[in-house]
């Protein structure tokens, strides 16, 4: 990769959802869905967000795309003209040109496509909305996009029900690419797909990235999938990033006890590797009512007194390796072998 350029720089991002109760819908509390999250994504790389259900992955992604407005924090995005803008604070009226440059791929290829519209309508929709090209140019562009994602241009007149899950996900990808975006946010793009189809879509995403110089923010809970696509990985727990580093390092030499437990829990497709697993007891903390100190302490096998009182900060313990744990420097944790 050439000298790194930050395409996205997220600083202190927070999104709290109010909890309302009763007839008057009084606010009785807050879900701290995303709580002081900072990271950056370089141009051309893939950063993955992983963690258990409810840890705030989707909310983070939606804040970045300004599908929802964050409670506080900045998301600095470098536009294709080279200027850097804070998407989090931009007035709604000025979002449109930026939205073209950031696109989303969704988890569910079944519900995200309108069944009453043809493939052409679906893929050309962003072109129409942004008044790009004449009708003939759009037909050509859609044909090109369909070829790019491995579908036949002749399919243009068909409706989505005639396609399998994998093909529908390709349609979703074609639509996301229509306006030449620089950032693709993919929220669980393969988790609804079958194993063999999953492999095809992951390969397609890798190929498109190289071909079109795309940058991916990849949201997933499946660590095996994440390993296949990411340059770097950020692990989230109850609204916070607890560890972030290069993929290889995160998998082989994790430094946060939660990462270690997650890696250990992944079933390995080899019966000879039936190792003694670390089974995390209990459940994920409640984001509306998190525990004191380190949010992970009730489930952490390494917890000490300090963990119950003081909240650890995300620190760079080695160049490029960020960990939020009081004991990160002293613990020796287990990763997965090659």
């Amino acid at each position, binding site marked *: 990769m050439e000298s790194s350029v930050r395409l996205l720089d997220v600083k202190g991002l927070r999104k709290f959802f109010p909890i309302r109760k009763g007839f008057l819908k009084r606010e009785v509390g807050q879900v701290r869905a995303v709580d002081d999250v900072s990271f950056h994504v370089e141009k051309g790389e893939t950063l993955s967000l992983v963690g258990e259900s409810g840890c705030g992955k989707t909310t983070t992604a939606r804040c970045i795309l300004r599908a929802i407005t964050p409670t506080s924090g900045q998301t600095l995005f470098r536009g294709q003209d080279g200027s850097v803008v804070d998407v989090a604070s931009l007035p709604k009226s000025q979002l449109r040109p930026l939205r073209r440059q950031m696109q989303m791929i969704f988890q569910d290829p079944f519900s995200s496509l309108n069944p009453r519209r043809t493939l052409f309508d679906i893929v050309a929709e962003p072109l129409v909305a942004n008044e790009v090209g004449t009708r003939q140019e759009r037909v050509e562009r859609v044909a090109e996009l369909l070829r790019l994602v491995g579908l036949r241009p002749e399919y243009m007149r068909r409706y989505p029900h005639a396609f399998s899950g994998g093909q529908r996900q390709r349609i979703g990808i074609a639509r996301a690419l229509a306006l030449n975006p620089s950032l693709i946010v993919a929220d669980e793009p393969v988790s609804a797909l079958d194993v063999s189809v999953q492999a095809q879509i992951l390969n397609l995403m890798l190929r498109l990235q190289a071909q079109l110089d795309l940058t991916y923010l990849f949201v997933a809970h499946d660590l*095996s999938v994440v390993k296949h696509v990411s340059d770097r990985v950020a692990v989230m727990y109850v609204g916070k990033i607890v560890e972030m580093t290069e993929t290889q390092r995160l998998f082989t030499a994790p430094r946060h006890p939660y990462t270690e437990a997650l890696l*250990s829990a992944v079933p390995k497709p080899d*019966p000879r590797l039936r190792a003694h697993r670390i*089974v995390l007891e209990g459940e994920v903390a409640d984001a509306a009512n998190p525990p004191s100190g380190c949010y992970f302490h009730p489930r952490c096998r390494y917890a000490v007194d300090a963990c119950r009182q003081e909240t650890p900060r995300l620190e760079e313990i080695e160049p490029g390796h960020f960990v939020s744990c009081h004991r990160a420097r002293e613990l020796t944790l287990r990763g997965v072998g090659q």
Partner: protein
Amino acid sequence: MTSEGGAAPILSVRDLKTHFFQDEGTVRAVDGASFDVPRRKTLGIVGESGCGKSVTARSILRIVERPGRIVGGSILLRRDAGNGQAGGVDLAGLDPAGYEMRQIRGGDIGLIFQEPMTSFSPVHTVGNQIIETIQLHQNVSVEAARLKATEMLHLVGIPKPERRLDEYAFQLSGGLRQRAMIAMALSCGPRILIADEPTTALDVTTQAQILDLLRHLQDREGMTIILITHNLGVVAEMCDEVVVMYLGRVVEQGPVDAIFHAPKHPYTKALLRSIPSIQATVRTELPTIAGSIPHPYNRPSGCPFHPRCPDFMPGTCDRSEPSLRPVDDNQGVSCFLYHPA
């Protein structure tokens, strides 16, 4: 082809055919599946979406919904006749709504599904539903059934079980709900537990808890488990024996180590290569299986895998259908590479 020591398999499925008769055509969801379930072991059934795993499970329990029905084959359940003699019953020949099948369902064979919400009623408490199940199979008082239900919730690791009995399924987290469903399925002491994608909707950490629980319960109760999943990692961790299905048929069965380290069928090999692994090198392309699964209405002639098979032999594989035959004492495969047509 199964189990050591010559002990008879607890369940033997032979040439099972379950078809769905629809206006647009017949879906041959299960189309000649044969396999054995070794006693007190865990058998995994794997295969891609739509290959007939769930319909196989529903056929065993005789809960296939219309317009589907079993059109051929047998499902032999071997059970003690009480006098030390082994007796057998062909489930495929029983009346699905009859007394015997109702006793077997939930009594001899328990079932847990992927989505626990669908197996619990939203208007009854978890406790009442478990108590009802117990009373359906055992002649006990409500108090005794309630005690048993509490004991079951405790057994599956639900904290404060007395309190949870009076809650509704929607009040429980995903992991607790799955545990409650396991408790209900086990409340009548089944000897076979069929678990259809029991952890697919769960996080890896919760999945690890549930798999641990199943292993623990198996050790304690000596249960046989049929674990249906498309997650080959779960199979590698949990199963003793594996059945691989493709388009309604069993293409390979063998011990877990053989399936992962010496697979025979081209489909099994391709499937294993295509899975993303946590052990893999970062950012590498995965080998994929050529083509896609055919639509269930138009099954290919001959070997159902032939349009996608890298070892396809024209004139053979597209002419006749290979049958599942042993390649050695423990492993069986249905492919002309191993048995001449």
